[in-house]
């Protein structure tokens, strides 16, 4: 059974029909990369999956929990980690506290245990020496890696990445992508909204192009890059030209 089942999801922002009947199945361990022009609904779709955004029609089931039921929201959110474009680290807390707070509050872990997990994760993302720094003291790339570690500390089954490298300087993009690549190889389920085609080629099991609130094309990376779909070809030519 797919770990994420989205069926005919519609979302309206007052007048704007942001998602127009999107259906998406994601299997456990799959890495799905979503691309598309801005305003195409890719971020909205991602945010609907952990219900940061409420959808108006359709159904989303995450790991057997239907998001229609309000009581499931916090259960789902504990299973789904999210990484944001603007990092959103807690500005008043040190890196260590950023990583341990939710573990203690939500997972009810003891302080020692939470700190041990945090230190391991900081080592994994390559910044064990920054545990006592405040977010402002870190570079963008470091902040984003902390944000990834913070999400991983909750042992999520699914990770959502909402344009994780769009706010980064070019030379910091790689350090974040490397962490994401390592995660993908570990077999965690990932949905990534990103225009990093190098990452998509290396890690994606499936690629999706969204436009105007709909899924235009959904394919394996090899076939996707050789797509004959006019819209896909046009968009890819723009994105690849960028590099």
């Amino acid at each position: 059974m797919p770990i994420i089942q989205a069926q005919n999801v519609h979302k309206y922002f007052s007048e704007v029909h942001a998602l127009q009947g999107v259906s998406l199945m994601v299997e456990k361990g799959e890495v799905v990369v979503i691309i598309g022009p801005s305003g195409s609904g890719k971020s909205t779709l991602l945010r609907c999956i952990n219900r940061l955004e409420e959808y108006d029609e359709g159904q989303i089931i995450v790991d057997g929990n239907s998001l229609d039921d309000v009581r499931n929201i916090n259960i789902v959110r504990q299973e789904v980690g999210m990484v944001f474009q603007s990092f959103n680290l807690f500005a008043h807390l040190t890196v260590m506290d950023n990583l341990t707070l939710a573990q203690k509050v939500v997972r009810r872990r003891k302080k020692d245990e939470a700190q041990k997990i945090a230190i391991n994760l900081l080592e994994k993302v390559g910044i064990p020496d920054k545990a006592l720094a405040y977010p402002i003291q870190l570079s963008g790339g470091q902040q984003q890696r902390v944000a990834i570690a913070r999400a991983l500390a909750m042992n999520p089954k699914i990770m959502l990445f909402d344009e994780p490298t769009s706010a980064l300087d070019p030379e910091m993009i790689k350090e974040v992508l490397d962490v994401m690549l390592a995660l993908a190889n570990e077999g965690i389920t990932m949905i990534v909204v990103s225009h990093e085609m190098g990452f998509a080629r290396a890690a994606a099991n499936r690629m999706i192009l969204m436009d105007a609130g709909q899924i235009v094309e959904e394919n394996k990376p090899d076939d996707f890059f050789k797509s004959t779909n006019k819209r896909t070809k046009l968009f890819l030519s723009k994105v690849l030209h960028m590099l």
Partner: protein
Amino acid sequence: MGERLKPEPGGSKLAYFPGARWIKRIDPWWGLVLIVACLIIILVTAQADPFSNILKFVSSGIAVTVLVTVTSFLFVLIIGMIGGLGRLSRNPFIRLPASLYVEIVRGIPLLVQLIWWYFAFPVVIQQIGEWLNINALINYRADPIFTAILGLAICYGAYMSEIYRAGIQSIPKGQMEASRSLGMTYFQSMRHIILPQAFRVILPPVGNEAIALLKDSSLVSVVAVADLTRRGREFMAVNFNPIEVWTLVALLYLVMTLFLSRLVAWIEKKSHFER
């Protein structure tokens, strides 16, 4: 974002001498508190008659003023938080009463509110008591200090609600989203993420309110509370020396507000963080 350059110790000074850093850490405005305090001491010692007599007479009033201000301010902080969160609630049954409270209380002069709580409120309670036939309510009498604290807390709570609301709204939306995405509930997120950050943002206006509250507490003298102002008036009624009495009372208020203002500045500095 990125790291900012920190100035060298004494870098902007013409000369650097040992101990300067320690001295620099002391806020020079404490000097003003000291000057006013010294002025009071000089007046009281050099001109014992009448200043020492006045000070002895109003000292109980100082205690009452401090008690009323501190107690009501604690309630103001709580009411403000509830009111501020209420005004931001998505539930109209919470949001509307909170907004109604703020709008109504903001629109009535504090003096009128205090008079209403002291003279009208007890009668309302008594009449409800008669209607329900409950003796405890029929015999209800207004306690001056309780009424003063109630009136001040409710009035200032409305202003404080607006300050809390602005402070909470000033925290980027992403903080709440990140917190919720980790599985924290709305209240956990408020408690651990939003309010600690908002509180640092609102500290200056909160300090302002504390000082304003201390000064406005002088209004409670009209509802039979023997605070600093009322004790001053009582002393004057007997000895009739307005210059001395009101100068000393003014200086006493001034030293308290200046002290409070330093206290706020100190807390602000201690809880400062960059983002």
